């Protein structure tokens, strides 16, 4: 009997020791309010975010901001989802185009206008983009635009003419052919955009150009038909056959759209696809000079758009709602913060932030691009529900065509069925 007790005692002691070790660190100092800010990014973004945090903390000694950083958006949402399910969500949740999926767990910020946050200096279109069913559930971190990036230094090196910033599809194809004639073997005029992990965006652009937008939330329908998707696949199939984009297996090796596994940075392609806010990151990864051109056909159809890059959203169940909203006001509107943050999360949508300028030189190119591409834009198409699955499955279908497993006609049919299924889910 004594031994039994001893064993149990040992067990209890060890458990309580570990228990203590675990929870001791969470005893927050009383008097300070702690705000948890969950976002994704690394390297440069983390550094500048921390600088902004330090600035805020120096002005408000009783506030502590704890960043919770995930390497990529994928990990970030997995973590946030599980935290929310556990009732343990962060105060500020960074969200992207998938904000509709989170609308019911986010706070309506409208009531705080004029008190904790100043909405009047923010562009109305940015406010609109964060409003769902009359509630302002996310403040835009800045505006972004899809763009084609090209390696200016490489073009100059091979003696090819620089591309015009605005072209239609025929001019674009001709330009690719010019590049191909001057490029050495193993280097391609353009990256195979369809195999990027974020491939639904170029596809989205093309459907807008084609006059058949992907999704209309008001009647839960898609304007895309199998023949439309088929034409998209055939377009790229054509490029592939002419050697204007790499063959499928080489392209598949550069599928993650980040500066290191980018074909453009690796010097294996001249033109690639990025979002404008990625320019400073990409530019820092290479000594060649990069610049932007528009997606072809934007001028005729105004098919480009200016979505908010990301949103700062507040967890409805946050314990420090007022302080959290105030901190967001700082991030979005404060000139010093804006200078530090630059356009890493998008070109600011707040006029006070824009007037402060940016610490990054590459941001000037972004502004130049937006000046041309802005007028070639129209209202953003609604996002297809179940974004993640759309990206992942579209990618798979595109690859099947690229590897010759199915024809563009079959691919078109599969994409159509995918859209219907996701809308109905």
């Amino acid at each position: 009997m004594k031994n039994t007790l001893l064993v149990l005692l040992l067990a209890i002691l060890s458990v309580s020791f570990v228990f203590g070790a675990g929870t001791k660190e969470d005893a927050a100092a009383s008097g300070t309010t702690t705000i948890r800010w969950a976002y994704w990014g690394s390297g440069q973004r983390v550094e500048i975010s921390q600088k902004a945090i330090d600035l805020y903390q120096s002005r408000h000694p009783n506030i502590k901001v704890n960043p919770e950083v995930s390497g990529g958006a994928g990990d970030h949402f997995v973590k946030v989802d599980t935290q929310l399910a556990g009732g343990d969500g962060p105060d500020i949740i960074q969200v992207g185009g998938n904000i509709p999926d989170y609308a019911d767990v986010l706070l309506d910020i409208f009531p705080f206008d004029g008190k904790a946050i100043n909405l009047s200096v923010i562009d109305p279109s940015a406010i609109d983009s964060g409003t769902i069913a009359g509630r302002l559930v996310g403040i835009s971190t800045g505006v972004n635009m899809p763009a084609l990036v090209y390696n200016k230094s490489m073009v100059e090196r091979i003696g090819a003419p620089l591309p015009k910033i605005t072209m239609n599809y025929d001019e674009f194809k001709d330009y690719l052919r010019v590049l191909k004639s001057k490029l050495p073997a193993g280097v391609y005029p353009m990256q195979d955009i369809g195999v990027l992990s974020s491939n639904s965006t170029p596809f989205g652009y093309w459907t807008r150009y084609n006059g058949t937008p992907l999704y209309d939330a008001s009647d839960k329908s898609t304007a895309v038909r199998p023949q439309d998707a088929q034409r998209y696949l055939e377009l790229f199939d054509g490029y592939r056959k002419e050697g204007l984009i790499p063959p499928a297996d080489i392209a598949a090796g550069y599928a993650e759209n980040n500066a290191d596994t980018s074909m453009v940075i690796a010097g294996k392609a001249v033109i690639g696809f990025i979002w404008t806010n990625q320019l400073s990151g990409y530019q820092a990864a290479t000594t060649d000079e990069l610049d932007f051109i528009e997606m072809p056909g934007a001028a005729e159809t105004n098919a480009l758009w200016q979505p908010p890059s990301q949103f700062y959203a507040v967890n409805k169940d946050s314990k420090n709602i007022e302080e959290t909203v105030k901190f967001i006001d700082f991030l979005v509107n404060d000139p010093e913060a804006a200078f530090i943050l630059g356009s890493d999360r998008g070109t600011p949508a707040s006029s006070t932030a824009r007037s402060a300028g940016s610490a990054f030189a590459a941001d000037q190119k972004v502004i130049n691009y937006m000046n041309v591409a802005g007028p070639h834009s129209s209202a953003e198409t609604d996002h297809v529900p179940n974004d993640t699955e759309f990206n992942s499955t579209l990618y798979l279908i595109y690859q099947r065509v690229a590897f010759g497993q199915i024809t563009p006609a079959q691919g078109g049919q599969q994409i159509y069925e995918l859209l219907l299924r996701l809308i109905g889910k």
Partner: protein
Amino acid sequence: MSKRKTTQRINSLILNLFIIALGVGMLYPILWLIGASFKPSNQIFTQASIFPKTFTLDNYVAGWKGIGIVGFGTFFKNSFVICIISAFANAIFCSITAYAFARLQFKGKNIWFAIMMLTLMLPSHVTTIPRYIMFRRVGWINTFLPIVVPKFFATDAFFIFLLVQFIRGLPKDIDESAIIDGCSKFGVYSRILMPLTVPALITTLLFSFLWTWDDFFNQLLYLTSPHKYTVPMGLRLFLDSSGISFWGPMFAMSVLSLIPAFILFFSLQKYFVRGIATTGIKG
């Protein structure tokens, strides 16, 4: 006489060379990793050879700082805390359980043993989500508890099995003579059997440590604030899907993270080879 010795010497030499050659071939990726950790970031992918043209320690300095707010000092500390506690908890509680199965008599023993063996086959996925929901209900998210506490309940059947087999190899009369001398059950366990089980215990300690260190999925799920991150999670922070990744520092820290494990393995070898050997797995 000396002719045989020379032949032996030559054979030895050839064997050594063969092992080294095979080893280099196998370790090439690791050697490349180590070399890359000493190269400046912009030369890592452009320079093919293992040996850095420009040797630099920058990656180690930058890598140690982590992602600015939290450095690798913290990540290593967290990993060590989790792994050491898990290792010892496993050693204690798996051996207690093994003692019960190997030496004690009680009703239903065979059924429980069969069930314990069956849990070896259980894919972890079947219990992941429910365990997560349970742990958040008691407020243990963002602590080390969900990772460490299961070890206090001997959930690693592999080590129980190992220890059972080892204890079975120890003669029963030492138990019996101790009991005759008035030793309690716990006394037999702690004073008689455990000292003899040291090789198997060290095996348990070492492999618990290594496997916990590598258990990325559970760390990802339960540790949400960077201050609690472990080394594998810290390494992942260096990768980003929308900007630059810090390859140089990432490699440097990967190399560092190999060192504790390597040292442990190297120094404890003779124990655990013996530890597994005498489990009589062969029956």
